[in-house]
């Protein structure tokens, strides 16, 4: 113990690198707090947007009015691409069970968009028939359509070669 070299034991100010480390850490903590709050705010903001199944969306049509919402359902066979007002749109019919709703989707559809594969669309109700109604295989043709601009594919969890099922669209052919 006694052969240790003598040390300068005068009290010293905190080393600059230690202060810098504390400042960096405090900044990191602040960033994490901001990120957590941001996530919560964003989640709560989105909480009003439920995935309504098509049948519920049709039932709540009057209540939803011009409100933007998400709707989930299976596209029926018979998808028509068209140009409306200079923009590319995809027209098809969405269904859950026997309930149908015509859709005019603005923009390119999802890469894996296929009849029978459920999709989640985001948009609003419009009180008019969609364009190219006659070209659809089995349209709802009820004087309404969903005007959407955001499409994501809701993939199932079945990875069996023979087990994967398409969601049937009512009595669609």
């Amino acid at each position, binding site marked *: 113990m006694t052969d240790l070299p003598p040390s300068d*034991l005068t009290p010293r100010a905190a080393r600059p690198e230690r202060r810098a480390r504390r400042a960096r850490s405090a900044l990191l903590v602040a960033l994490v707090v901001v990120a*957590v709050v941001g996530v919560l705010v*964003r989640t709560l903001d*989105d909480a009003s947007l439920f995935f309504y199944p098509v049948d519920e969306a049709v039932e709540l049509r009057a209540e939803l009015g011009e409100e933007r919402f998400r709707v989930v359902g299976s596209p029926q066979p018979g998808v028509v691409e068209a140009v409306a007002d200079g923009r590319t749109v995809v027209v098809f019919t969405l269904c859950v069970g026997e309930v149908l709703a015509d859709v005019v989707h603005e923009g390119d559809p999802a890469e*894996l968009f296929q009849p029978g*594969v459920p999709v*989640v669309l985001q948009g609003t109700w419009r009180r008019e028939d969609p364009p190219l109604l006659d070209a659809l295989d089995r349209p709802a043709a009820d004087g309404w359509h969903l005007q959407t601009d955001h499409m994501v594919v809701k993939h199932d969890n*079945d990875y069996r070669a023979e087990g*994967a099922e398409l969601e049937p669209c009512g009595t669609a052919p």
Partner: protein
Amino acid sequence: MDILATESRITTGSRGTRLLGLAALAGVLALLVFAFVLTDPDVRTHPTSGEEFGQFDAVRLLYLHVPMAILTYAAYALCAAASAGYLLRRTPWWDVTAHAAAEVGTLVCALVLVTGSIWGRPVWNTWWEWGDVRLMTTLLLFLLFLGYLALRRAAVDPESAARPAAVVALVAVLDIPLVNRSVEWWENRTLHQKSTLAELKIEDLTLFTLVLGIVVFGLVVTWLLLHRFRVGWLERAEVTHGIDRAIAERRGVASTTGVDSTVGQTREES
């Protein structure tokens, strides 16, 4: 002997961890072969149109993403268990274990978010879906443990951060059931599919490769945990050694200047 004087000889490796590392490396190579070569892409034929549909090659990310998600849960659960152990026992072993598990868990959780996002672009048509309960609770889990790690870094003395960090870990881990069950509890609030393994909607080589992935990532995470634990333990030893050395220096000075060198010592020491 001054352990830090032999710094060049200090290693976190041992015969066991080297063997484990080799097994993990071989496992990763085997997993890559199974995931990207031997298994088939997810291609199905549409019953009416006859067109092909499915996830195609994107399904291969399943063999990485799902095992990583499971190992994230495991690492954070270990962190919470070790944090509880620390609050009960107050020994550094528990604290260093909790810290190591949180760090490894956060790394794996980040990879879960990245691989999920890469998978989501071709399959869902989006990199990220704000408001999706599964995605948001996972992001929140990542941020909570990032906060845990930031808290630990903010303290110069690891001892002072141990207790608050343990409490944060025990709170943050409560998000895991929400992440895991979100696809069941909020079926109309999540784009994410339900658990494939729980419903066993997977078979043959696909199932084998997924299970292989879980085993391989288990080895990788264990290897990382052991090394991170040993690094943490050495860091702790360095701090303790520094304090011991400073005390020894003060006593040395005191003895040469005639000051009572027993001041500050316990009765047993003096």
